[in-house]
């Protein structure tokens, strides 16, 4: 390890611009001649559009154009797509209704796009939108997925009779039922995984441009995966040919999943730019973000765990109803299916698992991946089940977990996954020590003396990251491969540009990826630049989500670096007049084995470009190599989080007193950045458990559409965290990386709810455990005590 190589807590190269206000996010860009778009959105959750009268609006000052779904149809612009095909258990394909970028005939949720007004200024566009007269025939709406499946419920899409998009299952029902039949004890729970709004601090934004000279388009957008956006916009939606569409995702202010998807607004900006002959820009306001960014979670699950007489888990079954919202967003169908049920084995050796998942349309915003995507939902089910089971069996929850952990690797679960490496017991032991588990009962007594309820909760999560082997996901229904690409361009001076298909929007790639180059090629970190987020610069890439940029993106870079070294050895052999087989590369220097003769990396780079020392017929000049890396397996980060909290039964206020996280992320490139990712994940997970929840009223109005109504975690809500690491290198990629971006969000909700239920002494509380909910639950305790006396 050098001072800036793998494992060093290097301060981030990208920081300077962000702390001086010099970051360049999409809304910071100003394009010559730009016009502003404002989307008229549906005020109704479900309605037929009888007519749209734009005459008065068109006459308003500054209005350039008003476009509707009819204009889209006339230009043969296709609908938005869902890129993952799920088949129901009867073999039938999922029932996907049409998803036009501007409504055609019907609106299906509050915030659905009815028309776009393009004007000289944003204020003019907004004013004109108010003058558009839309005649709606309002229809009954349904917002709850379970209600939507009932007979007589309003039908969101004609194609889905009972609003059910798919009835999917995974695992072996017969062997699972058999395990339950012979169980000594069965634990049953019903859980709701609350609907969340991702809320990156940067709202979504897009600027579309058309260059008539070259008949080419440019889209600046807030995207986690600009190449996928280009592919979908060209191949499926058809707004522009792929080779004439440049998508640029500049600095992006957080995504958390919500900026993976290809939305209506960027589609319309590209299309409209050509129609009006000016750049068209749109930036979401916060209310629009609440209404129209894809939401996360929203599962209702009944789950059961079967144990034998020794407290060994022998089976798990789960029935989940997933609310998918009014349309299938880009990857929505994969989230409650293949990103969820394959994780229902948790960290445990469970011989039989069977899961059934119904995906359901409702009159709410589309639901798709949000930090963790399916895996937080699975972890919540497994870790709540295990905790409750331990309580019912009168066993210590840590011991119960350790008894049931997977201990030998590789381990094939009954639900697809092959865990390749891990040491869950080591993580648990370390976490117990860091959390001073032994001292908990003393602390609980001390809290009780002050009239407070103290609880402790575990979450021994596992996730599947490094998504994923392309063949494997293809066989499961993915519409794309999930490899990553990289190109390492060595300049004649020895400085290096690395082009990557991963996108950085807070993850620190400009630093960690440079650390890898620094480590492998021995060049100073300041001589390395990471280029990403521009389809004209990087040929193709799959983007950043699912904690894949390290495991997959960096593996591609490592592969390209290996090729650079191979080529460099050929050049060095000529320079040193030695046999290529005798050339070694170490610490930035090519040397002849067994001698002190050598040449530095930068000199070899120069020689590669001037090509004076070798024949251009024998060896190609230049030093630039590319690679595509397809992973051999998912990666399996795992760990133990322990939440210790105190409840004030008089106010219902929950205070997190201690948080211990021991994670195994495999090899760590930059511990400082990893720790930051853990902190952030925990913050979002604690947010889900204690504060956040998107609420629609019965008519389909989102009543939590601002930061005043939707309670985000704030500085005062979170304690300092005790973060520890254990390391089992991942054997499935060349760097041993597992991924760290989602762990906290996956682990935290179960840890918090296990602690709250431990403090309360009963299970009757759901997320978000707001002060009001906790106070009510604590009153139940008081009532129980009175009854007992």
């Amino acid at each position: 390890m050098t001072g800036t190589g793998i494992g060093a807590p290097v301060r981030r190269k990208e920081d300077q611009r962000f702390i001086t206000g010099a970051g360049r996010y999409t809304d910071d860009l100003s394009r010559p001649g730009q016009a502003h778009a404002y989307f008229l959105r549906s005020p109704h959750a479900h309605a037929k559009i009888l007519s749209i009268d734009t005459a008065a609006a068109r006459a308003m000052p500054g209005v350039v154009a008003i476009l509707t779904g009819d204009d889209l149809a006339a230009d043969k612009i296709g609908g938005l797509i869902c890129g993952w095909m799920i088949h129901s258990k009867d073999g039938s394909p999922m029932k996907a209704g049409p998803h036009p970028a501007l409504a055609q005939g019907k609106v299906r949720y509050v915030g659905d796009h009815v028309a776009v007004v393009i004007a000289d200024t944003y204020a003019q566009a907004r004013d004109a939108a108010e003058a558009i007269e839309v005649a709606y025939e309002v229809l009954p709406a349904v917002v709850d997925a379970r209600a939507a499946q009932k007979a007589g419920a309003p039908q969101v899409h004609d194609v889905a009779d009972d609003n059910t998009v798919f009835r999917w299952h995974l695992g072996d029902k017969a062997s699972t039922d058999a395990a339950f039949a012979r169980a000594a004890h069965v634990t049953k729970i019903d859980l709701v995984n609350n609907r969340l709004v991702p809320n990156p601090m940067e709202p979504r934004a897009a600027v579309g441009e058309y260059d008539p000279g070259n008949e080419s388009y440019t889209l600046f957008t807030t995207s986690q995966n600009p190449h996928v956006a280009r592919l979908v916009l060209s191949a499926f939606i058809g707004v522009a040919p792929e080779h004439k569409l440049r998508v640029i995702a500049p600095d992006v202010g957080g995504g958390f999943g919500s900026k993976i998807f290809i939305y209506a607004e960027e589609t319309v900006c590209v299309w409209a730019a050509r129609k009006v002959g000016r750049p068209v820009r749109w930036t979401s306001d916060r209310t629009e973000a609440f209404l129209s960014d894809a939401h996360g979670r929203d599962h209702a699950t009944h789950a059961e765990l079967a144990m034998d007489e020794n407290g060994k888990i022998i089976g798990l079954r789960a029935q989940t109803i997933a609310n998918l919202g009014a349309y299938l967003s880009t990857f929505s169908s994969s989230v409650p299916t293949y990103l969820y049920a394959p994780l229902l084995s948790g960290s445990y050796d469970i011989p039989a698992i069977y899961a059934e998942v119904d995906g359901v349309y409702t009159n709410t915003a589309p639901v798709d991946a949000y930090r963790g995507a399916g895996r937080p939902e699975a972890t919540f089910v497994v870790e709540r089940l295990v905790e409750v089971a331990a309580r019912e069996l009168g066993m210590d929850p840590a011991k119960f977990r350790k008894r049931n952990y997977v201990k030998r690797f590789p381990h094939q679960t009954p639900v697809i996954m092959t865990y390749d490496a891990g040491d869950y017991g080591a993580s648990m032991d370390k976490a117990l020590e860091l959390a001073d588990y032994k001292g908990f009962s003393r602390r609980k007594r001390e809290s009780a003396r002050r009239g407070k309820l103290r609880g402790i909760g575990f979450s021994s999560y596992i996730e599947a990251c490094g998504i994923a082997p392309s063949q494997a996901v293809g066989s499961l229904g993915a519409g794309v491969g999930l490899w990553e690409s990289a190109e390492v361009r060595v300049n004649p001076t020895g400085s290096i540009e690395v082009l990557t298909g991963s996108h950085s929007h807070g993850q620190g790639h400009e630093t960690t990826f440079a650390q890898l180059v620094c480590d492998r090629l021995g060049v100073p970190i300041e001589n390395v630049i990471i280029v990403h987020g521009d389809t004209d610069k990087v040929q193709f890439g799959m983007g950043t989500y699912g904690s894949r940029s390290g495991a997959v993106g960096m593996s591609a870079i490592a592969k390209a670096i290996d090729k650079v070294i191979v080529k460099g050895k050929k050049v060095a052999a000529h320079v040193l007049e030695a046999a290529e087989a005798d050339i070694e590369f170490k610490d930035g220097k090519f040397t002849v084995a067994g001698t002190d003769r050598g040449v530095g990396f930068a000199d070899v780079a120069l020689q590669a470009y001037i090509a004076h020392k070798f024949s251009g017929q024998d060896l190609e000049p230049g030093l630039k190599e590319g690679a595509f890396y397809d992973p051999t397996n998912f990666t399996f980060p795992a760990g133990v989080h322990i939440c210790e909290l105190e409840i004030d039964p008089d106010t219902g206020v929950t205070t997190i007193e201690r948080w211990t996280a021991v994670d195994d992320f495999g090899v760590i490139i930059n511990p400082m950045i990893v720790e930051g990712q853990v902190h952030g994940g925990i913050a979002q997970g604690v947010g889900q458990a204690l504060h956040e929840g998107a609420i629609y009223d019965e008519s389909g109005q989102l009543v939590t559409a601002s930061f005043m109504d939707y309670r985000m975690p704030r500085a005062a809500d979170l304690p300092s965290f005790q973060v520890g690491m254990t390391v089992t290198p991942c054997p499935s990629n060349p760097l041993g990386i597992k991924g760290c971006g989602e762990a906290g969000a996956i682990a935290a909700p179960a840890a918090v709810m296990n602690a709250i239920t431990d403090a309360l002494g009963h299970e009757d509380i759901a997320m978000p455990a707001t002060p009001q909910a906790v106070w009510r639950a604590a009153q139940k305790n008081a009532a129980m005590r009175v009854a007992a006396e």
Partner: protein
Amino acid sequence: MLEVDKDRARHAVQPQHAFLVTLKVNGEEHRLNVDARTTLLDALRDRLHLTGTKKGCGLGQCGACTIIVDGRRVVSCLTLAVMNQGKEITTIEGLANGALHPVQQAFIEHDAFQCGYCTPGQIMSAVGLIQEGRTRSDDEIRENMSGNLCRCGAYTNIVDAIKDAIAHGLDPREAMTQAVEAIAQDAGREA
């Protein structure tokens, strides 16, 4: 004096209720014609092209647009440009003077942000907070920084960064004076 209204095309239509205001931002005076309804945030971003100040909600609920006006922390989306005539306005662009401000340096050292979008607001809020002297305990810092949302969840490191900036000799009462003087000097040099 800077040339103002760099994007004339957008303002070809004469706004109603337009006012000529002088905004003193980071030590430089800018004269511009604004619609009475223009927020200070929009004036900074769209008219002066000082895009370091971010719009996270436009409703005063997230703190991303926090700047310092006459020594006080202000969410610039909740004040109109015309209300800030002649006031001393400091944005993130005006904080560093050659060397980074101690709070900026501490944010780097403590990894106090990830995506960077809320960061200008966090830093300006921290500078104001230190100046107010309301940093006597972790809890006090957390409470007083609670108006600044960070979805990346860097709160723990933000608290550490603020404590570090204070520990590294940033006298709370002088923090703002320092920044303002630096800006004044800077402006003087350019003039």
